[in-house]
C-alpha cells in the first residue's frame, strides 16, 4: 500500500448469533496514521535541525545584541520543534501499539467467530439428529408395544394364534433392535450437543476476551492521545521597518514623509521614512525600477525628497498623497533636496 493513500476503513463483520462482537476498526488505517505521525515527527526534527544549523552558521558572522536576541529566540523555537516532534512520536507510538493490539484482537475475534459458527452448525446438526433419534425411539417404542400386544392377543387365541404370535414376536424383536439403535443415537446426539454447547461457550469466552482486550487497548490509546498537546512556538515580532508590518499607522497630516533615493550599481533604491508626531518612525526600502522620483542619477548620488507625497510601494500603510511638513535636510556635494 502506498503511504500517500490512506486505506479505506475496513468493515467489521458482524456475526449473527455467535454471541460476541469483533472489535471494530481498521488496524491498517491506524498503522498508516502511526507512520504518518512518525513522518511528522521526523519532519519536525528536520526543521529543528535547520533552525539549529542556521543559528550555528549565523553565529560566525553576526554578533551583538540583535544577534543574541535572535539566537535566544531561535533556541526557544528549536526546542518547540523538538518537543512537538517528540509529542508526534508519542502519538505515533500509541497508535502503533493500539493498531497492533487491534489487529491481534480482530484476528482472535475472527478465529473465535469462525469456531463459534462451526459450533453453532454442529449444535444445529446434533439437535436435528437428537430430534430424529427421539422420533425413532418413539416409533420403535410404539412398534414394540404393538408387536407385544399382537403377540399376546395371538397367544390368547391358542393353537390358532401360534403363527400370528410368532410373527408378532419377530416384529417385537425388530422393534426392540430399532429402539435400542434409536436410543443409542439419542444418547450420542445428546452428548455431542452438550460438547458443542461447551465448545461454543469457550469460543464465545475467547471472542469476548478479544473484544475486551481491544477495548482496553483503545482506552489506553485514548488516554495517551488525550494527554498529548503541542504548545505553539513564539513568533518573532515584525521589525518596525518591515514593509507591511502595520506597527505604525502613516498619517501624513500628523507627521512627515521623507523619501531618500540613492543609486547604487545602476539600481535605484528608495527609502521612505515616516515620522509621526510621537516620534515613531516607519521605514520602507525598496528598489524602484525606472528611477521613480530620482533626478540627476549618477553613481553614489543621493536625492532627499522631504514631503514628496504618497510613497509608492507603501502597501498596507494607508498613506495618503498629502505631502508632509517638509523635513529640513541640508544637502552637500552630490546630495540635493527637492
Amino acid at each position, binding site marked *: 500500500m502506498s503511504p500517500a493513500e490512506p486505506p479505506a476503513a475496513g468493515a467489521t463483520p458482524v456475526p449473527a448469533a455467535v454471541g460476541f462482537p469483533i472489535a471494530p476498526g481498521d488496524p491498517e488505517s491506524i498503522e498508516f496514521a502511526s507512520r504518518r505521525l512518525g513522518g511528522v515527527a521526523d519532519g*519536525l526534527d528536520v526543521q529543528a535541525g535547520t533552525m539549529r544549523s*542556521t543559528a550555528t552558521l549565523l553565529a560566525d558572522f553576526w554578533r551583538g545584541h540583535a544577534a543574541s536576541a535572535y539566537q535566544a529566540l531561535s533556541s526557544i523555537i528549536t526546542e518547540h520543534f523538538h518537543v512537538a516532534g517528540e509529542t508526534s512520536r508519542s502519538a505515533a507510538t500509541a497508535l502503533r501499539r493500539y493498531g497492533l493490539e487491534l489487529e491481534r484482537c480482530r484476528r482472535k475475534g475472527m478465529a473465535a467467530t469462525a469456531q463459534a459458527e462451526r459450533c453453532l452448525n454442529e449444535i444445529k446438526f446434533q439437535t436435528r439428529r437428537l430430534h430424529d433419534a427421539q422420533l425413532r425411539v418413539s416409533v420403535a417404542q410404539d412398534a414394540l408395544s404393538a408387536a407385544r400386544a399382537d403377540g399376546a392377543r395371538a397367544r390368547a387365541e391358542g393353537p390358532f394364534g401360534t403363527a400370528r404370535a410368532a410373527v408378532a414376536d419377530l416384529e417385537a424383536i425388530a422393534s426392540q433392535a430399532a429402539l435400542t439403535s434409536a436410543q443409542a443415537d439419542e444418547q450420542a446426539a445428546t452428548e455431542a450437543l452438550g460438547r458443542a454447547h461447551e465448545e461454543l461457550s469457550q469460543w464465545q469466552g475467547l471472542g469476548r476476551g478479544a473484544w475486551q482486550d481491544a477495548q482496553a487497548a483503545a482506552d489506553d490509546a485514548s488516554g495517551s492521545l488525550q494527554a498529548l498537546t503541542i504548545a505553539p512556538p513564539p513568533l518573532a515580532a515584525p521589525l518596525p521597518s518591515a514593509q507591511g508590518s502595520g506597527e505604525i499607522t502613516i498619517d501624513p497630516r500628523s507627521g512627515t514623509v521623507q523619501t531618500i533615493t540613492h543609486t547604487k550599481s545602476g539600481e535605484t533604491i528608495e527609502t521612505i521614512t515616516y515620522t509621526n508626531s510621537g516620534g515613531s518612525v516607519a521605514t520602507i526600502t525598496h528598489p524602484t525600477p525606472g528611477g521613480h522620483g530620482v533626478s540627476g542619477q549618477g553613481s553614489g548620488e543621493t536625492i532627499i525628497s522631504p514631503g514628496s507625497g504618497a510613497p509608492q510601494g507603501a502597501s498596507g500603510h494607508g498613506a495618503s498623497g498629502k505631502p508632509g511638513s517638509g523635513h529640513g535636510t541640508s544637502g552637500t556635494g552630490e546630495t540635493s533636496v527637492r
Partner: protein
Amino acid sequence: MSEFLVTPEDVIAASGRLSVIGGGVEELCGHLQSCAGAAAGTPAEAAFEGMLGRFSAVLPHFGLAGEHLGLAVAGAGAEYSRSDLEVADACDGGRGGE
C-alpha cells in the same frame, strides 16, 4: 548600545535557510490531514480526532515561527546593509564637499 559585528550579505543568505521551514511544515500539515478518519468506528476515535485537531491547529504556527524568524533575520540583514550604504554614501558625500 550594542557592540556588533555583522556581515549583512551572509545574514541575508542565512535567512533563506529559514524561509523553507514554512513550506516544510505545510507539507507536514498535509500528512496530518491525511490521517483523518483512521480510527473511525473505534472507541479511540474521539481521542484520535481530538489529538489530530489540536496538532493541526498548532502546527501552522511552527511554519509561521520559522517564516517570521527568517523575515526578522532578513530584515536585520537588509537594515544593516542599508545603514552601511547610507553611512558610506554620507561619508562619500562629505568628502566630496571638501
